């Protein structure tokens, strides 16, 4: 890309920052009853907070994401953040206008406190002594960060998949801090099918002898189990149609091997994704985060936590994708239906897309238009 002068624009540089809080004896009390502290959250910000502090957007990443949502971490960095097509100057989430915040989730492994962090009580990594965290706990930790930044009300919260669950949890727990919300490709309660795939992924890790009950940080760890878990994940992110189009029955070698080394392109794709993941993700984090997603249910106890008068004037944009079978459209419609009971200002669109659950991260003009149009309205009606 070049600008008007013909020179390549300077890459947008972002810095990873850290906030530490809940130091003993003020530890955070978790849903499971355990106390955890100190807690560190890694986060990045883009754009400028306006003097009235009304233009802040919190982006919540999905299960394997991190705080690096957009831009580059240093000169010469070749890989931009995970949602660089959506977030940046002049992009749908326009950092010339909005102040964007993204933090690595509690329990993660990209700078925030999680099972691979050092337990200050023992000087060793937590491993399985890390307490079980829930989506609610993740959101509770994020609230510390938002308070720390001096923001009393977020203009919007945006997140897909597990990030969308956090968006909904924010709405349920801190409605007064929510200016508007965009839950994408997500659900208000994890389905049996989604739990089933997560359980298979966890079993793949725990069946690897290198897992060693979560105590593996001195060595390479359960690399094989983690790769298999990621392969299972990838199957659920795609769709029949996208796999047919992307791979079909094409071979990745010239003839059938007549052994088990893998013949098909779809196999080598999954092997590649698994291997890549092992280099950047912690197996215990996968166990904890998938469990948090499985526990997520805003309808536990009969009522729906989204049916809340405090949300009556909060604009919502709910989006699903036709080929997403991990969080199918009916689950988004359930969210819409609960919000309508408050008479909430709720927009909904089911985007025709063949890429399965992954579609929310793929460049998509329709999604761009929806998000930029919605944010533009919220900005003009509520933030000026």
């Amino acid at each position: 890309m070049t600008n008007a002068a013909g020179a390549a624009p300077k890459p947008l540089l972002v810095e990873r920052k850290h906030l530490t809080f809940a130091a003993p004896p003020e530890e955070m009390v978790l849903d499971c009853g355990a106390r955890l502290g100190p807690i560190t959250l890694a986060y990045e910000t883009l754009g400028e907070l306006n003097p009235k502090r009304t233009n802040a957007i919190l982006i919540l990443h999905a299960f394997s994401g991190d705080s690096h949502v957009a831009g580059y971490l240093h000169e010469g960095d070749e890989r931009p953040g995970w949602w660089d097509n959506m977030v940046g100057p002049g992009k749908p989430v326009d950092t010339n206008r909005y102040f964007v915040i993204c933090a690595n989730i509690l329990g993660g492994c990209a700078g925030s406190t999680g099972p691979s962090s050092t337990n200050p009580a023992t000087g060793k990594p937590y491993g399985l002594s890390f307490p079980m965290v829930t989506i609610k706990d993740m959101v509770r930790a994020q609230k510390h960060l938002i308070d720390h930044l001096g923001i009393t009300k977020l203009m919007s919260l945006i997140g897909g998949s597990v990030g969308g669950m956090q968006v909904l949890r924010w709405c349920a727990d801190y409605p007064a801090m929510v200016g508007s919300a965009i839950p994408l490709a997500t659900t208000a309660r994890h389905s049996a099918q989604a739990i089933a795939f997560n359980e298979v992924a966890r079993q793949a890790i725990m069946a690897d002898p290198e897992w060693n009950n979560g105590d593996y940080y001195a060595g390479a760890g359960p690399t094989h189990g983690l790769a298999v878990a990621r392969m299972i994940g990838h199957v659920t992110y795609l769709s029949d149609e996208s796999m047919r189009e992307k791979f079909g029955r094409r071979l990745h070698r010239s003839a059938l091997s007549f052994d088990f080394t893998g013949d098909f392109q779809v196999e080598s794709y999954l092997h590649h994704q698994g291997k890549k993941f092992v280099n950047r993700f912690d197996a215990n984090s996968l166990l904890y985060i998938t469990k948090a997603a499985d526990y997520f249910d805003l309808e536990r106890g009969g009522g729906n936590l989204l049916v809340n008068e405090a949300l009556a004037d909060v604009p919502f944009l709910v989006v699903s994708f036709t080929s997403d079978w991990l969080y199918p459209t009916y689950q988004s419609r359930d969210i819409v239906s609960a919000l309508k009971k408050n008479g909430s200002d709720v927009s909904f669109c089911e985007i025709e897309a063949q890429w399965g659950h992954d579609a929310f991260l793929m460049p998509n003009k329709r999604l761009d238009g929806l998000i930029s149009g919605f944010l533009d309205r919220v900005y003009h009606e509520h933030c000026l």
Partner: protein
Amino acid sequence: MRFDLQVIASWIEPGSRVLDLGCGNGDLLEYLKKHKQVIGTGIEFSEEKAARCIERGLTVLQGDFRQEVRDYPEGRFDVVVLSQTLQQISDPKELLIDLLWIGKRVIVSFPNFAHWSARLQILFTGMAPITDQLPYEWYNTPNIRVISIKDFKRFLRLFGVRTVREMAINTHHHDYKGTIVRSFKNLRATYGIMMLERVT
């Protein structure tokens, strides 16, 4: 904006909560928001049109409004608008009951099947009429109900629905121009527009 929508817009009080069923590209909602500070919501079946509405900053749900109207609480809207769609509904009576539940008032516009041009066609050709307002053949029409202004008024009387306002107009399918018909309405008007209210 279509002439029937102009009439409908003129009936809506400033600042009302409005639900527009089958809102298309959102022209009525946009107009009401801009000129009458209305808090509007639309329901639209087509992904493309619903998305265009959201991009323009309107609140719109993509979906089948027959399903979507069911979740709103009683009296949620001051006005529910159903324009040029009643003739395509398989259960119009049940729909009107649902709409009078979620809305304090309902504005309905529909093509008048008893317009003289349709009557003449049946009389002289002996075939199903094809008019500007109902431009389809019998085998491809989405319009499964034939309604005249007289039929509709009889229906309202029968089911105890009060008519707050009514107007008969002469306009084309998509035209922004039209005239108000004051006499021999069921013969001379191409569209009927009525504002209804539940009798409580």
